[in-house]
């Protein structure tokens, strides 16, 4: 409900209560000037206020009464019983209307002509019998008073003081042993203080109706603007939450609802074609679940088109095609939370400006909330927001690091483990660390390091707090010790403290030593923890930082030649034992018979001597390949980027695992080998590398292009002139004397700006697609 309107209702009701005595007195003595004046002031005020508020009935009633009373005040008319009754009739009606307004949503309709006519003494007295008002539901308002918020805040801080004094007293009592009588009295006091704190916390609560009452109007206006029909349902308006919280969710909720109407619900004709009711349905519900409030906004519109969203994300360079490929539908959906992304076909007044859902999510997370998507393409979208009941008291875990105590919101904690636990392994990769907890590799961040605290960090004997899900980041936070679960009264951090970006607030726990509440997302950002694999990695994140901690699960094994090797776990379908006799050399390479098929076999140069052979079965999604190994060692998390191999080949690079070098196989090379070998060399298109002196082109790019089935020549080679396509660097000079299409590569993942059609040089699929497109375009032409 409009704040002004609430104010108006409260004020009018209060004045009416105060006025009731005056009215009775005036009735007894119509000539009393002082009474007349106060009643005149009342109707005058009502008239003035309702001018702003668009309440025509109030305006008519108060205006008529004011006119009549003015004539009495000027002495041109004498107040008689009939006039008094008529004025009282109007005041009663105003009272009824105020109650109706308070329970309903709009000024109720009704006819006041009879009442107004009575002022002129024209109507019969009989007509003054109260006429029932249509919308005036019998409604007993809960008794309430208005209290300045400032006073509530003072009460809250007074109670906090009491809690601290109680704690102090408790400490002193423990020292002196005052006997059961004293302890009993203290317990009683303690109970009262706790109860008091509870009820004062509740005084700060407001019905979420305060937030929801603005929705019908907004939905109506938005829908009308877009030419859509929307039926809004609101449930759970009586759920209560902290008044500050209500203000904090106002903007995100507004945005979500507007989005639902603009992007979600289709235009009427489109709905008809889709076989849906022409009127879209939007449901907004609130419910309390434990100490959380759950707000759902569900529409029956088109949902999120994951494919288009992903395509947009790739086009904007927010995420790579490979990453999208690996994503589950839900993760692709979550791309809407990426900054600068919108699937709106056109930018409308309502939304689609590319600022939106990322801000919504950031705002919800800032207040300790979580936002979830439940997408049904073609059938609708449900957004669920979980927010804590109140900002002021949160359940927290206290931890120490560098001799200082900090609090972590319990809602962010997934689990707490000690590093002595056998299921946990900690690996150092360069400057970063990875904790593998029951096979799940998580970036490990030491709180002391992030906060630049002095003192050495013990390498063992630490506790890891697994923090989950904030902005798609899950990581393990290493702390010296974990203490207690506590309910803390949280106060906002002052601007210079908040500016550090790692604190969500401050608190004064029972021991009286100020404590900082950590911002779980802020810590992750400060430590450079990247989004979880497959989740969104936004463009703003510096890639170099992400690289340090992005890891891939890798299978370690001993090769048939005794060397330690690793391969990305994702391409390994399974490990299998086969009889040595199934391996044979045919059609120019090693092959193995498996499940009645012959699979290419790598990792083995000669026919095996042993009767049994261990194989890794690799799958790239379409082709299968077997790789012979000695034995499986382990599964470890290794950084995604490793030391690249000196020359291209089946080994992509090397990494250190437990201090020993491990060769990492290049699945790309392995699969390329089985396909490329069968192609006739002459038919392959010729790709010319523009800069023969560039070692990157020669050593890294060339094998890749060759593996993709192209013949490669360097600029200046004999057959360079007959090129089908040319690859050049975006920064370098344009190659001369070439009629073939040119594919340009740039060194940085980010595009330089509009019109930059170059390709990031490590974007393998992007590069290969561009080569193919250029060649086929050239052949058509």
């Amino acid at each position: 409900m409009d704040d002004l309107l609430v104010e108006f209702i409260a004020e009018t009701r209060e004045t009416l209560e105060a006025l009731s005595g005056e009215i009775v007195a005036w009735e007894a003595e119509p000539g009393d000037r002082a009474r007349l004046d106060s009643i005149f002031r009342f109707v005058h005020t009502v008239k003035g206020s309702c001018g702003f508020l668009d309440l025509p009935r109030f305006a008519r009633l108060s205006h008529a009464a004011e006119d009549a009373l003015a004539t009495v005040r000027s002495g041109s008319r004498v107040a008689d019983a009939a006039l008094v009754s008529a004025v009282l009739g109007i005041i009663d009606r105003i009272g009824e209307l105020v109650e109706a307004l308070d329970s309903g949503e709009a000024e109720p309709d009704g006819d006041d002509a009879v009442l107004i006519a009575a002022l002129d003494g024209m109507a019969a007295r009989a007509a003054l019998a109260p006429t029932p008002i249509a919308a005036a539901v019998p409604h007993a308002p809960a008794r309430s008073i208005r209290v300045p918020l400032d006073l509530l805040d003072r009460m809250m801080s007074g109670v906090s003081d009491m809690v601290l004094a109680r704690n102090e007293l408790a400490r002193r009592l423990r020292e002196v042993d005052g006997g059961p009588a004293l302890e009993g009295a203290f317990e009683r006091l303690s109970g009262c203080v706790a109860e008091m704190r509870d009820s004062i916390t509740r005084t700060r609560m407001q019905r979420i109706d305060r937030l929801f009452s603005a929705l019908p109007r907004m939905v109506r206006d938005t829908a009308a603007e877009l030419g859509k029909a929307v039926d809004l349902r609101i449930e759970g308006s009586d759920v209560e939450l902290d008044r500050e919280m209500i203000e904090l969710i106002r903007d995100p909720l507004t945005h979500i609802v507007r989005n639902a109407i603009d992007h979600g619900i289709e235009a009427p004709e489109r709905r008809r074609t889709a076989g849906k009711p022409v009127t879209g349905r939007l449901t907004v519900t609130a419910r309390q679940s434990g100490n959380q409030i759950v707000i759902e906004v569900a529409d029956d519109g088109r949902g999120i088109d994951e494919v288009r969203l992903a395509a947009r994300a790739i086009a904007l360079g927010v995420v790579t095609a490979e990453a999208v490929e690996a994503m589950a539908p839900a993760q692709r959906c979550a791309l809407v939370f990426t900054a600068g992304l919108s699937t709106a076909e056109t930018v409308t007044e309502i939304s689609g400006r590319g600022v939106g859902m990322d801000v919504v999510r950031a705002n919800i997370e800032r207040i300790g909330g979580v936002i979830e998507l439940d997408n049904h393409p073609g059938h609708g979208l449900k957004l669920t927001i979980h927010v804590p009941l109140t900002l002021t008291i949160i359940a927290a875990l206290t931890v120490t690091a560098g001799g200082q105590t900090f609090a972590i919101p319990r809602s962010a904690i997934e689990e707490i483990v000690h590093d002595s636990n056998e299921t946990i392994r900690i690996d150092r990769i360069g400057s970063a660390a990875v904790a593998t907890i029951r096979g799940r590799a998580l970036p490990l961040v030491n709180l002391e390091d992030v906060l630049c605290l002095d003192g050495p960090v013990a390498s063992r004997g630490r506790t890891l707090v697994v923090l989950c899900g904030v902005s798609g980041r899950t990581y393990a936070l290493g702390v010296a010790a974990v203490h207690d679960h506590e309910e803390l009264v949280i106060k906002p951090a002052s601007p210079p403290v908040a500016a550090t970006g790692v604190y969500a607030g401050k608190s004064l726990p029972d021991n009286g030593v100020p404590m900082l509440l950590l911002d779980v997302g802020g810590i992750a950002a400060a430590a450079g923890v990247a989004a979880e694999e497959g989740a969104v990695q936004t463009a703003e994140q510096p890639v170099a930082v992400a690289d340090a901690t992005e890891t891939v699960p890798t299978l370690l094994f001993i090769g048939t030649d005794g060397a330690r090797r690793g391969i990305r776990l994702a391409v390994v379908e399974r490990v299998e034992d086969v009889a040595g006799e199934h391996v044979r050399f045919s059609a120019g390479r090693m092959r193995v018979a498996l499940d009645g098929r012959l699979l290419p076999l790598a990792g083995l140069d000669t026919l095996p001597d042993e009767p049994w052979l261990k194989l890794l079965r690799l799958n790239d999604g379409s082709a299968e390949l077997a790789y012979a190994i000695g034995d499986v060692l382990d599964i470890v998390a290794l950084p995604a980027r490793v030391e690249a191999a000196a020359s291209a080949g089946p080994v992509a690079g090397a990494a250190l695992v437990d201090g020993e070098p491990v060769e990492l196989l290049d699945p790309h090379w392995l699969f390329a080998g089985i396909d490329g070998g069968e192609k006739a060399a002459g038919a392959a298109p010729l790709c010319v590398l523009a800069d023969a002196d560039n070692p990157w082109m020669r050593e890294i790019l060339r094998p890749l292009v060759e593996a993709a089935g192209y013949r490669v020549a360097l600029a200046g080679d004999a057959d360079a002139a007959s090129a089908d396509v040319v690859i050049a660097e975006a920064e370098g000079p344009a190659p001369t004397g070439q009629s073939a299409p040119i594919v340009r590569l740039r060194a940085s993942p980010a595009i330089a700006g509009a019109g930059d059609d170059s390709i990031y040089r490590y974007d393998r699929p992007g590069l290969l697609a561009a080569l193919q497109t250029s060649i086929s375009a050239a052949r058509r032409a």
Partner: protein
Amino acid sequence: MDKLFLLCTIAGQPVAIRAAQVDSVVDIGAIAPVPLAPAHVVGLAALRSRLLTVICCNRALGLPAPAKPSSRAVVVTVDGHPYGLLVGAIDDARVIEQEPVPIRARLEAGWARVATGMVDFEGEALLLVDPERLIAGPEEHALAQAS
């Protein structure tokens, strides 16, 4: 009230702060540091149930912290957040009838940023210091200049 000033010293320099901006003057106890905070933010201190963000005025001026840390703090509230400004000696609240006058002398950068004028008390010229500018600290100023 607007003629009432709190007189104290910051980095050995006697200064005046408008009493209307001051909540109270307290001795603060243990200060919990705030890692990663700007240098002039000493930490947090409890004043009953209020949590003060403690500011070292010397640092806020871009000067080195005093050799012997002070525990005397002027408590001010800015944008609803309580702060404790660590100062040297606190003289008293005094009524100064004369209006503050603009500073005509050339001040060091730190002082120039926090001083809003000069008042004359018993023949001595005092800098009138704005607590908000002390809280903002030197870094922000540098940033503002850079941009």
